[in-house]
């Protein structure tokens, strides 16, 4: 998805590579190569290629084709919350 903006919000957007460490801590293995199928538009994307918003209260990984939130992660003082309902599934190579 192309963004013509020069605004800081777009510039600050990174991709799933930026949260590779956190994902690996959660799932116990590298997840940037895992493929998620978007529940909204059915596009397949590697987690490393998802749009990532990492500077707010939590991390939001979005489909690069339709911008739907695929994964959301929040780390509070005592727990980590993960919502992956935005993915129909995640596929991990053995």
């Amino acid at each position, binding site marked *: *998805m*192309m*963004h013509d903006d*020069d605004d*800081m919000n*777009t*510039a*600050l*957007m*990174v*991709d*799933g*590579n*930026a949260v*590779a*460490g956190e994902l*690996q*801590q959660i799932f*116990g*293995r*590298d*997840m*940037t*190569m895992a493929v998620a199928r978007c529940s909204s538009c059915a596009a397949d994307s*590697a*987690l*490393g*290629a998802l749009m990532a918003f990492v500077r707010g209260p939590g991390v939001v990984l979005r489909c690069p084709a339709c911008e739907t939130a695929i994964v959301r992660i929040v780390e509070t003082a005592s727990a980590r919350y993960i919502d992956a309902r935005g993915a129909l599934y995640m596929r991990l190579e053995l």
Partner: protein
Amino acid sequence: MQPPQLEWQVAKVTAIRPETPQTKSFTLALPRWMAHQPGQHYDVRLTAPDGYRTERSYSVASEPERAGEIDLTVERIADGEVSSYLHDVLMTGDQLEVRGPVGGYFVWDIALGGPLMLIGGGSGVVPLMAMLRHRAARRSTIPARLLYSSRTQDDVIYKSELEAMARSDRELGIAYTFTRQAPSGWIGYHRRIDSAMLEEVMRPLGADIRTYVCGPTLLVEAVASTLVRMGLPAERIRTERFGPTGN
């Protein structure tokens, strides 16, 4: 093969080297070093006396063939909390808490083969340099090109090393483009990366190219969509967005 569970470890800074006015390379000796894949990064964590913590990720600049230590090349971001500390406070002999290596998507090694096209903007060249240093360390003849976009020639990281690599390696070509001021007498590219430039640089590589694009988000998005429009299959293009560039 699954990487082991990621844990923080305390590295020792053994060398600090300025690369450009805005970037420095830090050599870290790791007690639990493991060979990384070129393109992977480490997370760096700083802790203040009151317990306040903050983390950033930095791509490994060095090749995995250099055992026991890694180089991180860091650009100083204005008001950057961590980059200012690394540039202005950290000294050789200091400790730095790191975790890694991390990432499996934006990686390349010679086992993946080529031809290899690397496109970097600003500090986006760092993980690409790890790929080129690894390729050189293994004396690989996989055809490769680097297209490196910088604001001015003062911003070109690893300039003399890249020039030496290109001189001594017939299968490697490096093209530079400058988006602000080009060196005087420059007859090369002097504009943002576009399809004409990509086409010229990539043409000698033929077909089935593996492409890696890294740098500020806006550059990566523009280049990746241009490559797709040029007909490159999306699954042969890997991207890593660094967020906004320092100014």
